[in-house]
């Protein structure tokens, strides 16, 4: 389990970053028409709200007071119409903003997902599942709240604030200035709480991230947890450390979050008290014949305005939280969107024509770009030169970490070489689009990963347009058909997450069928045959022999038969090709291969 809260993703964020705001606005841009419409509807609403009391006045003054039932009826009907308009305006406004908010986050999620599909595999070595989910689900969710509710509310609050300030100033300058004396205090409090709130917000985020990752890991590993009877210890750890941390951080944040509105409230009262005292004194002074004309009516109105004045401020301070999280969420989302796609199709890339399958490595070196390139030992592949003629099978042999997997990953362009180039049929791989390349390539990975879906869907993943018959014959070719038809619903049996309901061997057979269905020109087998039982493996070996025929194949193999049957064996050690030749040749050399061979296959 993740060891401490500091591990979670805490990009230090600024409270307001114009750069992020600009980019957020770029996402909102396409909906500016809807925004304007919603704003207009909001104005209509406010106008209606103002008109209401006025109509009451009309009804009373020209209706009831004037003893005119007609005027009363007119006023009442008008009021009814206005209420109806208000209903429609609010309804439309919420609908529009809901759609806009949802569309924007839909766009965000779609963009993020598409970007994730393009990021190179080394990105996934660094970025955990939990973090990806937090980005795409939670951080984007925060934006939704902000766009749907806060943007318009802020506009309304600012509007109201300006209006009230103008009204106050035009009514009485001196009283306004008295009321505004609390504003510096307000600013000071805001900046103080802003800082605190930001800190807390970060802590709260990382606390929930910690909870998230501990949950994810333990649910994934629940079988090991139970096998080792760790439930009690894990529970105590979760309760007393992880969840407890989440609780105390949240309580700390609550203390600050509760204090701020109380302070705003207090300042509002202070302003009221000041007006009562100083304004009242001024009224008395006036009536005693002194200077300015402050009437009791002005005083009353002023006191009402002060209440109204603090309403939008209170609301803005509440929205500020939402704004804060939006900035933080936005920053993390853009950080992910900005992660460069290392392996990228160049603009002029063309679709690969049907391949013959000749592969050539020319002086290929490779290291992970995020590691220090100056260190020689970091090189994963070092000056690889290799030529594989059409239709040949190459067995790659070497220790774990020697660079075999990386070598085959370069062929399918999961990575681009740091130096040198990889050629297929004489063309540099970087000239072609990745998808056209991979569509002609079959890959069987170490972990037979299956998706949620039926067995049929999992096999068809190799070639979506394959018919049911084609799927079945691929399954038959790799001896998977027999066990599949014995499953509860045959080919339509659902495979649960990660293939939990199938045995490891069965999962592997399904993944073979998937690769076979793709009918690739170049086949890459990465140590995939090692965990099938002997009988099944025998069948697969046969199927593979047929499959390999006429295709260029790279096999990372441990099984003797595969190695012996290969046209050529390439021995890799520390990222270099140290030996190359047929089984007999290499054994005769008595070098690295023969040593590996002996120590590995003795029982």
């Amino acid at each position, binding site marked *: 389990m993740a060891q401490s809260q500091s591990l979670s993703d805490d990009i230090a964020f600024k409270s307001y970053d114009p750069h992020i705001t600009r980019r957020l606005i770029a996402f909102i841009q396409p909906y500016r028409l809807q925004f304007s419409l919603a704003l207009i509807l909001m104005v209509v609403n406010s106008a209606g709200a103002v008109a209401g009391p006025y109509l009451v006045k009309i009804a009373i003054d020209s209706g009831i007071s004037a003893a005119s039932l007609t005027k009363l009826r007119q006023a009442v009907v008008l009021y009814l119409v206005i209420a109806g308009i208000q209903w429609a305006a609010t*309804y439309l406004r919420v609908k529009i903003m809901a759609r806009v908010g949802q569309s924007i986050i839909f766009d965000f999620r779609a963009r993020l997902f598409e970007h994730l599909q393009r990021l190179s595999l080394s990105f996934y070595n660094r970025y955990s599942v939990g973090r990806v989910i937090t980005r795409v689900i939670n951080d984007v969710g925060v934006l939704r709240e902000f766009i749907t509710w806060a943007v318009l509310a802020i506009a309304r609050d600012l509007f109201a604030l300006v209006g009230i300030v103008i009204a106050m100033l035009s009514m009485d300058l001196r009283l306004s200035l008295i009321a505004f004396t609390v504003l510096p205090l307000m600013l000071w409090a805001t900046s103080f709480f802003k800082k605190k709130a930001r800190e807390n917000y970060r802590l709260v985020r990382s606390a929930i991230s910690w909870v998230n*990752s501990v949950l994810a890991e333990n649910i994934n590993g629940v079988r090991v947890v139970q096998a*080792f009877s760790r439930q009690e210890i894990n529970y105590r750890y979760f309760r007393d450390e992880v969840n407890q941390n989440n609780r105390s951080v949240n309580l700390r944040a609550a203390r600050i979050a509760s204090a701020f509105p109380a302070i705003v409230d207090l300042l509002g009262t202070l302003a009221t008290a000041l007006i009562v005292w100083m304004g009242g004194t001024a009224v008395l002074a006036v009536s005693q014949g002194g200077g300015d004309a402050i009437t009791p009516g002005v005083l009353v109105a002023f006191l009402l305005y002060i209440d109204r004045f603090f309403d939008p401020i209170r609301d803005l301070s509440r929205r500020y939280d939402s704004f804060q999280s939006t900035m933080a969420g936005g920053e993390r989302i853009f950080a992910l969107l900005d992660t460069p796609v290392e392996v990228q199709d160049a603009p002029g890339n063309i679709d690969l024509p049907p391949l013959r399958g000749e592969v050539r490595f020319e002086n290929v070196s490779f290291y992970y770009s995020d590691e220090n390139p100056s260190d020689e030992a970091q090189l994963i592949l070092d000056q690889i030169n290799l030529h594989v003629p059409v239709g040949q099978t190459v067995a790659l042999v070497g220790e*774990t970490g020697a660079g075999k997997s990386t070598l085959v990953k370069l062929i399918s362009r999961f990575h681009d070489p740091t130096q040198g180039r990889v050629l297929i049929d004489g063309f540099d791989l970087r000239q072609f689009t990745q998808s056209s390349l991979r569509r002609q390539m079959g890959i069987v990975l170490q972990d037979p990963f299956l998706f949620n879906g039926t067995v049929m869907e999992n096999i068809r993943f190799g070639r979506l347009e394959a018919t049911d018959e084609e799927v079945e014959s691929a399954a038959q070719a790799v001896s998977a058909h027999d066990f599949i038809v014995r499953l*509860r619903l045959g080919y339509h049996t659902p495979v649960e*997450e990660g293939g939990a309901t199938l045995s490891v061997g069965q999962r592997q057979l399904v993944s073979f069928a998937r690769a076979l269905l793709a009918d690739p020109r170049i086949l890459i087998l990465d140590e995939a045959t090692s965990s099938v039982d*002997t009988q099944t493996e025998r069948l697969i070996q046969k199927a593979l022999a047929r499959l390999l025929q006429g295709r260029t194949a790279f096999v990372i193999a441990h099984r003797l038969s595969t190695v012996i049957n290969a046209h050529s064996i390439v021995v890799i050690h520390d990222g270099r090709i140290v030996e190359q030749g047929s089984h007999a040749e290499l054994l005769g050399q008595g070098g690295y291969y*023969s040593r590996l061979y002996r120590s590995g296959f003795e*029982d």
Partner: protein
Amino acid sequence: MKSLLRLGVFVRPYRIQVFLALLTLLAITSISLVIPAIIRQVIDVGLAQRETRFLALSALLIMGIGTARAGLTYWQRYLTEWISTHIGFDLRNRLYNHIQHLPFTYHDHAQTGQLISRCIEDVRAVERFTGSGFVELVNLTLLLIGIVTLLFLNNARLAAIALIPMIPLVLVTSEFGRRVSNYFLAVDNALGELSSRLQENVTGVQVVRAFAQEPYEIQRFHKANRVLFNARLTVIGEWAKIMPTSNFLVTLGTILILWFGGQMALRGEMTIGELVAYNSYLLLLAAPAGQLTWLVNMAGEAVAGAKRAFEVLDHIPEIQSPPDAVTLPPLSGRVEFHNVSFAYQGDTTRALENINLSVEPNQVVALIGPTGSGKTSLVNLIPRFYDVNQGMVLVNDQDVRHVDLVSLRKQIGIVLQTSLLFSMTIRENIVYGRPETSEEEIIAAAQAAQAHEFIMVFPSGYDTMVGERGVTLSGGQRQRVAIARALLMNPRILILDDSTSSVDTQTESLIQKALASLMEGRTTFVIAHRLSTVRRADLILVMDGGRIVESGTHLELLAQGGRYREIYDLQLRDQEQFREEMDSLETAASAAFPTARLRGMETE
């Protein structure tokens, strides 16, 4: 609504705090009514009597009351947050612990993304409401009752008219509450589904890339994204209807008063002043009515969250220690299967059919057979990861269903094909099953598992972090740490899978050695792929279609000339021939290169 009531269990421990929060809120509401009264006094009395001192005094009074209100506001907010946080804490703990105890059967079908989203998002929805929402709701209800009473006391006839729109308001709001919780449920499910899609795509990214199926996956994600989009729009669509409707109905009250009250005033049954005052009372309803719909919305979200949380909590783990469980003494190592049949949940075909088996202490049992023949199912019954459908499994002559699970599982060591390690230090991973272990024992276990050497190569040795934030161990290294982990348990019964997937040949031979030392002096069940293991076994079980089709020792079964013989001829013999071939080769090679012995060379 039932789910909301059930949440009461989680609220009950904090009823004092809830009561206090309610009290403070009521105090704030009443104080807020006092300040306008003071202001009225100031204007009426202070200004009329021309008392400067009175003004200063009033200002001080307002300040004092305002300070009290600010303090109370602070406490009220903090208290409700405190309640929320504590309820969320409790609920999350309960969920986590419950999930940990749910049996394999449950996890076979559950999606990690969905479970996590219940522990995080759904708990959040619940705590948000149970804290502030609940208290506000009570406060509002009291306030509404107060205003309505006031209206009736003032003028019963007008009240009867003005409150007519309140009837549809109540109906519409409660209908909204009922509906919206279902819509929120749809949103939560859609969100869980979207998380699962993401989770799967991140874990399976290599496969997606390998088959160039990014467009297909993007399209699937779009679909899930669209479902969420629609679910959200439905929820807000409801909100878009209820919010203006509630405003409209309150306004309608005013209009009715104007119309009927106006006519009453025209007839001279009431004064205009009374009418205006009455209307201003009625307007007091507007804010709470609006807030009420918001709270109902929040409650709907909480109900949906509670439903999803209870769905997990209501799943009673089928596999638990019975109340009168026998705590197992140190095991002798005897294991018996009596007429055992077993089928996975939802499967019609049986994974195991009528298994009878008796294993003496310290015997090594090798299971062989094709993929899906029931080998893993059989061994999973011994630590009671699943329960049999028929027959019984006996360990130490006790039915495993009658013994204390911890005492059983602590004495069984398991090494699975996929060696899952946790992201903590190597040391913590090794002591996973026995946290109170001395350094010597840890090192001894690691050495026996052939892991010590590679561990010491890391700069931090045993304190090296594994996983995301630390080193990435290779498949072979993971497997050896897993072996050390099982070895440290010093189990009487050992279950292992000797397939050494995805490791190079040298590592494989190291693992084989580690496994051999692990098996010594224990009852061992091994899902065997290698001749050496099979030949060494005291009992070989050949499985097919969930049955034991042959059993005996290597030599016995060879002599029988049945299924085992077939498998042997097909595959195992290759290995043997190869070994012989190698032996002669080695003789030749070591003659040519006397120093070329590389056994045990550490490669990683």
